[in-house]
């Protein structure tokens, strides 16, 4: 009897304890999945790449004087020592998701997803390196260490080109997977591999051109990349936006309309277009930004603020609508017209002014057509002798002047500006410039606080006057 009682007790305890285990097994996160599908990762990374371009541009657009702050002495406008933590975070966040997509695509043997992943990574890595120089890469993305080492920026350029070549290779071959084919989850090209290959070549041309001040400058390599790039502006690499997730520049315009001021146009840009700087008018202003209530185009001097101008109606700023600032406007990553100006600059350096001149004119015309300038006005502009100077008179200055207009709001212009030592006509540093710069343009941004605080043993000590490797 006693033994039976004991056995019952043991059995009961056992039941109670195993029951407890089940009772406590509730710690699998019910809110979030532990796996991500390839399609979900591509959705996220292709879309967010557009946001990253815009994020970087919210800095560079002031640095290259597309935009100017309506308030005097605004930090970005005067190139102050700002740690752009959020931009850095967004770039790494997207590169992390791309890294997961690479791992998963490799596991699933989904070669086209892998190919797109490589190209997307090159875009985001390029944006990061061009702003900060040396950054963590080899030890990044998978928490291998909590203090990742920094990779040299020049070496990372090899990585970027390598990624583009790998992407081109993977996308040029047939898809190795039947079940995984990119489509509507790709917010740039909807899975069109031919266009991805062209974009990758255009990007190669861009990154090779960055090296124009270095000994590795090779115009002919650029031109051969150009040959494999876009054939017209319909092939531009752009990210789609939707009514539920509107174009970020249109959001700036909408906010400005409700007095969250932003998106005011720099005097530098207005004067480059309205004839002040060059003596002839460019018809593109109405297609790029707004006029005053009087119908005039008036910019704001960088760093100086709007003075006594009212919040509305007395200066030019981004307004909702049009090519750049409609709610569903696509956002440019790299375009046909950029490629044409790359071609023009490289061909000039290569001594082929004929090719350069054709590319230069084609760049202007396709940009004008894309943003909606009527053909008549385009023809008028192109027939202006100061624009159609003839192949023999084409200069790099002219190419970069037109490229500056055609790449409105694109962060690539800050790369051009640094290669060009900010020699745009009449461009001077902002009023109230960050005194640490000693009257010079900033040639990079400082590392984010998240790095200086959490990875201080690795983060290089830099000032905003230290150059990225290719800026010599």
């Amino acid at each position, binding site marked *: 009897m006693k033994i039976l009682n004991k056995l019952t007790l043991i059995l009961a305890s056992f039941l109670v304890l195993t029951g407890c285990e089940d009772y406590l097994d509730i*710690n*699998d996160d019910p809110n979030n*999945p532990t796996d991500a599908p390839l399609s979900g990762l591509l959705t996220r990374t292709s879309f967010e790449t557009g946001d990253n371009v815009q994020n970087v541009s919210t800095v560079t657009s002031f640095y290259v004087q597309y935009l100017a702050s309506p308030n005097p002495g605004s930090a970005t406008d005067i190139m102050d020592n700002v740690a752009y933590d959020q931009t850095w975070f967004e770039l790494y*966040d997207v590169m992390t998701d791309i890294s997961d997509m690479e791992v998963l695509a490799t596991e699933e043997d989904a070669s086209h997803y892998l190919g797109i992943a490589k190209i997307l990574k090159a875009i985001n890595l390029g944006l990061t390196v061009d702003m900060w120089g040396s950054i963590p890469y080899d030890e*990044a993305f*998978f928490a291998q260490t909590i203090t990742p080492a920094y990779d040299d920026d020049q070496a990372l350029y090899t990585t970027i080109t390598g990624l583009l070549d790998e992407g081109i290779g993977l996308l040029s071959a047939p898809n190795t997977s039947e079940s995984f084919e990119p489509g509507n989850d790709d917010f740039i090209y909807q899975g069109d591999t031919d266009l991805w290959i062209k974009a990758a070549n255009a990007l190669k041309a861009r990154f090779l051109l960055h090296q124009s001040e270095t000994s590795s400058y090779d115009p002919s390599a650029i031109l051969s990349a150009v040959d494999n790039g876009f054939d017209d502006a319909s092939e531009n690499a752009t990210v789609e936006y939707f009514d539920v997730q509107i174009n970020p520049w249109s959001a700036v315009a909408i906010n400005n309309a409700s007095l969250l001021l932003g998106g005011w146009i720099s005097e530098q840009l207005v004067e480059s277009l309205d004839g002040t700087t060059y003596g002839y008018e460019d018809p593109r202003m109405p297609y790029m930004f707004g006029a005053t209530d009087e119908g005039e185009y008036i910019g704001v001097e960088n760093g100086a603020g709007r003075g006594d101008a009212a919040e509305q109606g007395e200066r030019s700023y981004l307004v909702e609508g049009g090519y750049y600032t409609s709610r569903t406007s696509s956002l440019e990553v790299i375009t046909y017209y950029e490629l044409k100006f790359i071609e023009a600059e490289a061909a000039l350096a290569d001594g082929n002014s004929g090719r350069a001149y054709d590319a230069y004119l084609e760049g202007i015309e396709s940009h004008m057509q894309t943003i909606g300038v009527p053909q008549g006005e385009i023809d008028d502009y192109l027939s202006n002798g100061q624009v159609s100077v003839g192949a023999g008179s084409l200069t790099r200055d002219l190419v970069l002047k037109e490229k500056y207009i055609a790449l409105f709001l694109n962060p690539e212009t800050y790369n051009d500006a640094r290669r060009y030592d900010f020699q745009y006509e009449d461009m001077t540093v902002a009023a109230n410039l960050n005194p640490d710069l000693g009257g010079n343009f900033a040639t990079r941004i400082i590392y984010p606080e*998240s790095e200086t605080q959490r990875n201080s043993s690795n983060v290089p000590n830099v000032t905003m006057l230290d150059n990225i490797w290719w800026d010599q």
Partner: protein
Amino acid sequence: MKRFFTIWMISWLVCAGFSSYAQQTVTGRVTDAAGAALPGVSVVIDQTSQGTVTGANGEYTINTPAGAEVLVFSFIGYSTQRVSIGSQSTINVTMEEDIQQLQEVVVTAFGVEQQRRQLGYSVQTVEGEDLAKTEQPNVVNALQGKVAGVQITSSGGAPGMSSRIIIRGLTSLNPDGNNQPLWVVDGIQIDNSTFESSGTPRGLSNRVADLNPNDIESVNVLKGAAATALYGVRAANGAIIVTTKKGQSGKVKVDFKTSFGMEEVNNHPDYQQRYGQGFSGEYQPTSFWPSWGAPVEAVQVIDPEYRMYETTKEVMQTGKSTDNYLSVSGGGENSTIFASLAYFDQEGVIPFSDWQRVSAKISGTVDFNNKFSASGSMTYTNSGGMRVPHDRIMETLQYWSYSQDPNDFENPDGSQRTYGNSNPLYTAKYWTYEDNVDRIIGNINLKYNITDWFSLNYRIGLDTYSDQREEILPGPLGVANEVALSSTGFIEETRINSRNITSTFIATFFHDITDRLNATLRIGNDIFDISRNTIVATGNEFVVPQFYHLSNVTEQLTSQFILQERLIGLYGDLTLNYDDFLFLNITGRNDWSSTLPADNRSFFYPAINLGFVFSEVVDMPDFVNYAKFRASYAEVGKGTEPYRTQLVYTTTDPLNGQVGFTRSNVLGSDQLTPERTSSLEFGLEANMFDNRLGLDFTWYKSNSADQILSVPVSNATGFTRLILNAGELENKGIELVLRGTPVRTPDFSWDVSVNFTRNRNTVVDIREGIESILVGSQFGYAGATVSMQLIEGDPYGNLYGTSYQRYYENGTPENLTELDEDRSIVIGDDGYPVRNSNALVIGNAQPDWLMGIQNTLTYKDFTLSFLIDTRYGIDQYSQYDNFYAAFGQLDYSLDRNSVVIFDGVRSDGSPNDQQVWLGQGIGPDGRNYGASFYRDDFRGVSENFVKDASFVKLRNISLRYDLGQNLVEKTPFRGVSLSASANNIILWTPWQSFDPESFSAGAGGNATAFTGLGYPGVRSYFLTLNLSL
């Protein structure tokens, strides 16, 4: 001497009288065992509050109504005596000294009532009456200054706004970790979360604000790990044990209280009233710049109507509150019942902010027979109010020009009146956020005394609430020429459903081992189950203007967060009592927590404590009545938050039919092990001079190791945070409680109690590779951002920021981490102080010490009590000041057009002699000074805004008048009292802005060093009437 110093007990209670019946007069004399007269002894007719006290010769006279049966004689230090009246007209009583009487009963873990005498750890009790007296609707605030070792900080002055409570310092290095104690009401755990709004701060309530302080009988604060060992993981930060009022056998009692209060902002910065709208000293009537313009007298030449407004003062109103409370209680021989109804309503100092609380409570006890008894209670609360976006309002108030009327905020068509900038009051009125909480807290308690040495106790409790919130930001109203608050507008509906269940089973065994040694053994099981489901639905951009509904939007988004956590505990607790002077208590508990990886979820921890009443065995001087030594060592384990053991992905809102996936920014770990806090505590208690002086001293040290942290890491890792066991935090401190009765005569008495707290903490260890843990940071213009970081070897709460460069004869030391304010400031070639952009320690946000001094003076029917609360040696970052500097709004900026020579030295150490101008633009010397010293230089240096936030406050003062017995007899009431009280009416502080107590993180946040643009603190005044039947 003894007779001269005699206590005069609970005088205001002794004022009863209903006497339409035939009366009888009883007289008598009360003496001690030696025959000496005892003055001040309370003589009360049983079952009533009618009574008297003995006079100087120990004599008394009392009228007893017909039916009165028993007189109760009571006096501190003596046994209470009950004497049948019968037909006697003279009753003489000899009081027996009572050692047991010192054995005040306190409520410890799991509602076990124990004699304080037996405890080997520190417990402090606050009576409900003392809480109600403060008229604070939030019981957390009502506890301010009343308990040693406890730091309470009100997060701001908004109606219903949260208040933070910390016992014996912070225990968690985790920036988001919970450092607040466990709250237990009538034996069941209740939720004290603070869910701040996801958008702009709204000053929401900590959920304990749902408790009505009027319903509270007493609060016991269990401070150290030894006291809370039985609660295990849940009470690693201490525990607040609330006992609510119960019915008592006897006559039905009805109590009614009504109170009316008013409040206003208790401290403002000194605003300048000279320079108005514009920049560079120029008058610009539509300028964004509120006060860099021309002096008022210069503008009045052009525009005689032009005037200045003290905008913040003009916008703030006098807040009002009313508190009504009705309770009914009574009972028979075997059962009791208590019921209450309450309504509290408050309007804040910022217009349109308010908060209400309605509560209803019923509780009862039944003794079925000698063996089996049951009790239960249920409280329903509805609370919530309009939470204004105070952060936005206070910011727009800074932008709003001092030369524009801030009170004229709305156009006749309902649109915003503005000259350009957002209108603060319009924002307050229309950007609404309303919460509505329905909450039920209930428990059932069963007790079965099987034999005289064995009993069983089971309790099950429920705390469930739904918190419904609605935020509306209107879009354009659709009227001509309006400046809308938002170009799109949105509506956000939040639904939080929470349910906590507590189940507790205790078996208790008593055994007398010998005549002198007895043992109590408790074995128990404890199950705790939390479930919470939060759903947020957002609608963006209204289609039809002014129709605010989720269906009337162009975009709808929803999100959901489910949280489940369970805990099982098994414990044993053995108490040995040797001859009632030596007590040894040993406990052990094993917890199983659902939050830890399965392999590590079970953990055991022991505790031991000793109480030794040495005055019983050691010869003590005559004036010592009682002395006890305590010692304890305890360990407490701790789990973590749910869902920290995995790597997960989060999804993004669908876009064009596609759902994006992104890897979570936080990396969980399946290797987590429980955190452990071990603490050592020694204490001394003594009562002296006829118990007129009481002392309770505690020294403690507690180490919280293996902390589970969410550590911020380089984003390049692919994460922003990693969850891992890393680090140890040590708290050491002393607590001193002194209670005294300096004066005690039949008509007048003065009681004083002092609570002193000093806690020091050190970050002992952080896992290698992590140099610092960022607890939080707050924005400052132009690089003045201040952060609170934890660094190994440093105390918790160090504040880092920019400073003025200091002069070092041999060059600035390389590893300089701390600002040396005493050194000379280095002045640059431009004549301005040089800014050091390297973050240095510029302050610490933990107080050096805290002290509360409570005084109660009683003269006849008047009672005056006041509490002086001191917080010393604490620094805070004033974001307000940083903003004010940016806009030239405080009176120190009146010297904006002066030429000065900054006090300091040149980089070579020679004294600075360069004259500079402080103004904007071109100075008198022809030099361009940019946007002025204050805007360009001063505001970019954190040091200027991290200031001493110490204070001495007259936390509460109240004067109460109890209607004398003779007067009460003429009313239908048993008792009538009227009181006037005030909170925070006096504030001494070096701080120059709003009340330094406010902070922006909310009660649950650990980054308490930042004022943000918080809801200003208030002072308040109350009139209260209490009636009892």
